[in-house]
């Protein structure tokens, strides 16, 4: 599924290297957690995978089912099944949530040469998915994420993921800013999407999220590389001992 080899990336503006030879293999159907101290490059990794232009990849490769992702623009990657749940979902005034949801779904379907979804079909799909995530249709009438609470924004990200049915979902600190109830709802949303042909990369600072979304593998990231990998017990160990031994403060 996802294969990252010796990935080096730097910030385009100032040339600062953030990812320094990162290797990661995520087989189909698995959930991999990436944990690590602040500044270790976790969010950068998610942006580089999704195709943000502020970063320049200087070395290495990223493939999804053999497809080179690095040669694709962000929208093309999305159409190939890459989904990034943002740590800070943006508020976009003037762009209606429903308009946006429909545009995303149809853009991806067009790119894959599937037919566009009809409006009634789309409404039904959104309503069902939103209900499961405790998102009211009233909320979806607003501009994208405008006036949404932190938890609502995160749930809206999961709603998009559920609609788009990606191959690879990257969750960037989806647990941040969530209270325990919201965390449960979001985790259930994610767990429901677990499938043999879908992989997850779950980036988190805290072990708490992993109580709800059980990872197959836990990686520790430090200074732009994966420095240790293990089973779910590794997360518990990190929770207990902190990241001190990885050379950076938590």
């Amino acid at each position: 599924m996802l294969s990252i080899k010796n990935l080096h990336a730097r910030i385009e503006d100032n040339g600062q290297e953030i990812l320094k030879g990162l290797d990661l293999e995520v087989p189909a159907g698995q959930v991999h957690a990436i944990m690590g101290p602040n500044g270790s490059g976790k969010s950068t990794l998610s942006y580089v995978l999704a195709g943000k232009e502020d970063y320049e990849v200087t070395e290495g490769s990223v493939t999804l089912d053999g497809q080179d992702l690095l040669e694709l623009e962000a929208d093309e990657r999305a159409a190939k099944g890459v989904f990034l749940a943002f740590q800070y979902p943006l508020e976009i005034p003037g762009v209606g949530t429903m308009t946006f949801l429909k545009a995303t779904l149809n853009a991806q379907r067009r790119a894959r040469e599937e037919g566009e979804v009809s409006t009634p079909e789309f409404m039904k799909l959104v309503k069902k998915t939103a209900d499961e995530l405790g998102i009211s249709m009233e909320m979806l009438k607003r501009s994208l994420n405008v006036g949404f609470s932190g938890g609502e924004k995160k749930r809206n990200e999961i709603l998009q993921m559920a609609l788009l049915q990606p191959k690879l979902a990257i969750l960037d600190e989806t647990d941040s800013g969530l209270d325990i109830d919201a965390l449960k709802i979001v985790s259930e949303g994610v767990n429901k999407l677990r499938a043999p042909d879908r992989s997850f990369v779950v980036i988190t600072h805290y072990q708490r999220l992993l109580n709800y979304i059980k990872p197959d593998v836990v990686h520790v990231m430090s200074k732009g590389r994966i420095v240790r990998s293990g089973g779910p017990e590794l997360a518990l160990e990190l929770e207990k001992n902190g990241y001190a031994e990885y050379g950076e403060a938590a």
Partner: protein
Amino acid sequence: MTAVIRPVKTSAETALVEQFTAAKAALPGNATLREQAFGAIVEGLPHRRVEEWKYTDLRALMKDAKPLAVAPEKAEIDAAKKAVPFAALKVPAILFVNGTLAEQGKLPAGIEALALTKAYATDHALLKRFGESGVPSDNAAVALNTAFVSDGILLTVKKGASVETPLHLAFVQHGAGHAAYARVLVVVEEGASVTLIESHTGKGAHQTNSYVEVLAADKTDVTLVKLQNEDLASQHLATLAIKLGAEAKLTTVNVSRGATLARQQIHLYFEGDTTNASLNGISLSGGKRHLDTTLFVDHASYGCESREQFKQVLDGQSRSVFQGKILVRQNAQKTDGRMMMRALMLSDDSEADLKPELEIYADDVQCAHGATCAALEEEYMFYLMARGIPRAEAEAMLVEGFVGEVFDSIENETLKEELLAVTNEWLRTRD
């Protein structure tokens, strides 16, 4: 003795003098008024050293003065009808072709109309009401209109009439190479409500000058929506002058999309107390076009509220100007005025000039203004693209979102959709 140095007249200035000299004897109405008006420009057109015209140097930008349009033939009128927009609205239209009142149609109940030519013939009392809004008669665009206009319409919305159906004033230019002047007076009597739609369309390089004055009495509710979508080779000078009585409500939305050179002047005078006005506009410019919106709001009464929201989207090497001034006179206590102007620049070579001004003489008022200039948010673009929306579509969504807010003040959904369609059409061509 001091010698006044006069620059050589431009060809447009020379042509205007020649035209006026040749035409004045035949023009209807008060000749003295025309002479006085022409006096304001006989020495030349305003230029960049005149503050009000600093960003729109009419003298430099107006390359020629096209001859006055002749009254259109029936065939031309029939052809012009095809260019009337907003068919989906299915509302009555008063049609002007090349500045001539061509068709009046059936008016909604509560509205009376009088052709300007007929008013001239009888020296009708309504003629004297032009200028009541206090719009400066020596403003170049106003003066040119006063000097040259020969057709138009005078509308009266009768006392207490609640006119549900919007009335469409359609100004179509047919053919090229002419100058068309038209003038409209709208008297809205006490307690009446009305929605007027004004459209300017048509193909060909022409010059238009329109003057619309709205005199709304106490407790009136007036909505004015204007679409300027003239040929990209044309020149459009327009003045909207408004006077509002007490406890009235006004909403205006101006969409400036067409013309190489366009200037929309809006003059609003609050005569009565505790009146609310919401003034909105967008301009869409590309290529080497120059669009100007110049606003003057005169708070001369107690407790009035004004909201000004103007947005510009620029591409290519276009230039878009917005100057807005709010004057709060000494007796206009408890005035609440807020003006916001925002420019969205899609290209590196476009230029947005934003000039907000507040001049306040009362001491118990709330006034604010803001101006922003920005490119499309890269972060927004990434968010949309990361969901699979291609770049061009993502840009279009963001521009629509930016502009859409302005259309929210329009209650008529069909009209809102028509204006969004104009925006979409511009987004495809970016011209």
